[in-house]
């Protein structure tokens, strides 16, 4: 297979001023400013979307599909991600929003929260299974899974085998539509309404499965105003109030724990804090914990960079919508879904992109060079060179990605000594 890294996160050259803010905030140090533009080192990017959040010029963006893609298919299905309904004022019922989506060209809208609740039941089973390595780490946030591949590969075996609700929903619905409507799989288009670039990348470039059951993704940001316009047009149309499933809680941090009711859970949000918790697991300090619910974004999926509503308001709405939800019966879950069909099946591999060299002897030599260069750099991590820190510049120099004169201080020193 060709090693092509698809990333949803991308740079808009025309808007980038080369200001270095995204570079300084990137948790995997995947950005370098080259010739005044903030380039992403593809192999290091985990699509967390931090750069989208911090860019003051909106130059970092997510590659998404648009409604035009729906024309490729005879039957289109929308999978609103679990933070989607929380973007709308509570005066709009789920049904009203679904009607609006239908008028935009979707034939069917799937309630992903149902599948989140199904997965919660099986997650609870895993937590009670003594033969499974603990703590189990949720796969729901794909940026966290990618962070583990890069940063904590020893924890790959702790990653839950359960797929994400969107993937399970798409798999299930595709099969159902093929059977019930007697359609070919190629006629069906399934689209996620996504709060984040990481989920979009997971559709185009999945981890743990060969191919996603989804065909594409639209960003919530893009579809929201269109839905709102349709909602305004609905005006007096009476819509039946549809109960929220408990699974809707997965749209905010703590939802997986609250629905699965795994008591010994640690819930962590924000990529820096997630990294610290992953380190604690590696140190063996959390062996008494059964489950780790971790999100790259503060607040969980409501904090995703492609949402429109403030994460804390959205979180409030999710809790409100779920206030009177009654759980799906265990019988229904167990008779309709089997554990094996809810799992990913391809090995998740560690990523070795942080290494200086595959040969330890050469890597040691390179590190000596890095340390020697680092010593003569100013050590103020100004970022003007285009690398996120003086150490990163030293590394980039040794790896032939930069030169010492990229450091403005070294350059001035050089010019002074010439004069």
């Amino acid at each position: 297979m060709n090693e092509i890294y698809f990333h949803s996160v991308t740079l808009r050259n025309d808007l980038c001023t080369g200001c270095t803010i995204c570079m300084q905030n990137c948790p995997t140090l995947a950005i370098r400013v080259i010739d005044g533009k903030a380039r992403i080192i593809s192999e290091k990017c985990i699509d967390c979307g931090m750069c989208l959040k911090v860019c003051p010029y909106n130059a970092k963006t997510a590659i998404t599909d648009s409604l035009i893609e729906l024309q490729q298919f005879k039957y289109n299905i929308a999978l609103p991600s679990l933070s989607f309904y929380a973007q709308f004022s509570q005066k709009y019922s789920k049904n009203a929003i679904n009607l609006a989506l239908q008028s935009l060209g979707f034939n069917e809208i799937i309630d992903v929260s149902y599948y989140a609740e199904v997965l919660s039941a099986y997650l609870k089973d895993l937590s009670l299974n003594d033969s499974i390595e603990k703590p189990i780490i949720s796969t729901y946030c794909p940026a966290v899974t990618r962070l583990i591949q890069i940063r904590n590969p020893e924890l790959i075996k702790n990653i839950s085998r359960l797929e994400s609700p969107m993937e399970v929903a798409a798999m299930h619905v595709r099969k159902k539509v093929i059977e019930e409507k007697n359609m070919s799989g190629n006629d069906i288009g399934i689209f996620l309404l996504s709060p984040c670039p990481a989920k979009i990348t997971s559709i185009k470039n999945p981890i743990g499965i060969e191919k996603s059951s989804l065909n594409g993704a639209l960003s919530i940001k893009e579809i929201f105003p269109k839905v709102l316009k349709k909602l305004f047009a609905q005006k007096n149309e009476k819509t039946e109030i549809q109960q929220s499933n408990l699974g809707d809680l997965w749209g905010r941090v703590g939802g997986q724990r609250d629905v699965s009711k795994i008591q010994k859970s640690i819930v962590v949000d924000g990529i820096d804090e997630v990294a610290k918790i992953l380190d604690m697991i590696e140190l063996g300090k959390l062996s008494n914990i059964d489950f780790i619910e971790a999100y790259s974004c503060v607040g969980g999926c409501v904090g995703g960079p492609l949402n429109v509503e403030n994460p804390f308001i959205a979180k409030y709405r999710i809790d409100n919508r779920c206030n009177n939800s009654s759980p799906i019966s265990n019988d229904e879950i167990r008779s309709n879904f089997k554990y094996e069909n809810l799992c990913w099946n391809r090995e998740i591999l560690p990523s070795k992109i942080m290494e200086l060299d595959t040969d330890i002897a050469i890597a040691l030599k390179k590190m000596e060079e890095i340390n020697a260069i680092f010593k003569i750099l100013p050590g103020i991590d100004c970022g003007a060179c285009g690398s996120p820190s003086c150490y990163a510049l030293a590394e980039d120099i040794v790896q032939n990605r930069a030169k010492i004169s990229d450091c403005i201080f070294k350059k001035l020193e050089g010019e002074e000594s010439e004069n």
Partner: protein
Amino acid sequence: MKFEYTISNLDFSTAGEASSNIKKVLKLLGIDSKIIRRASIAIYEAEINIAIHSYGGKIILYVQENSIKIIALDKGPGINNIDLAMKEGFSTATHEIREMGFGAGMGLPNIKKCSDEFSITSESGKYTRLEIAINI
């Protein structure tokens, strides 16, 4: 190659930094993640020991092509009975330290488990010196 880290007494906000820095170094060097994990556990426990029990000390790391050597050296009360200190669950940590979740008496046994060579020397009222090696 040599790396040196200073550890302060009772500074829990920075305890763990040496371990996490060394982890980054070993990762850059492309060392197997299982070995990195063992080294970082050993260093973390050694760091916490220095922070809890001593008046301060340092961790020195030597990385060679086929081994990692770690020396943890501190000034402090030393260890009176090393055999006893090596027993799982034995601890001289104060109540306050235990309240903070440290001092469970697993540090030294854990370090030993993670290392291929292990030696500890101490002089009562003066110092403790821990030296371990992990084969690459």
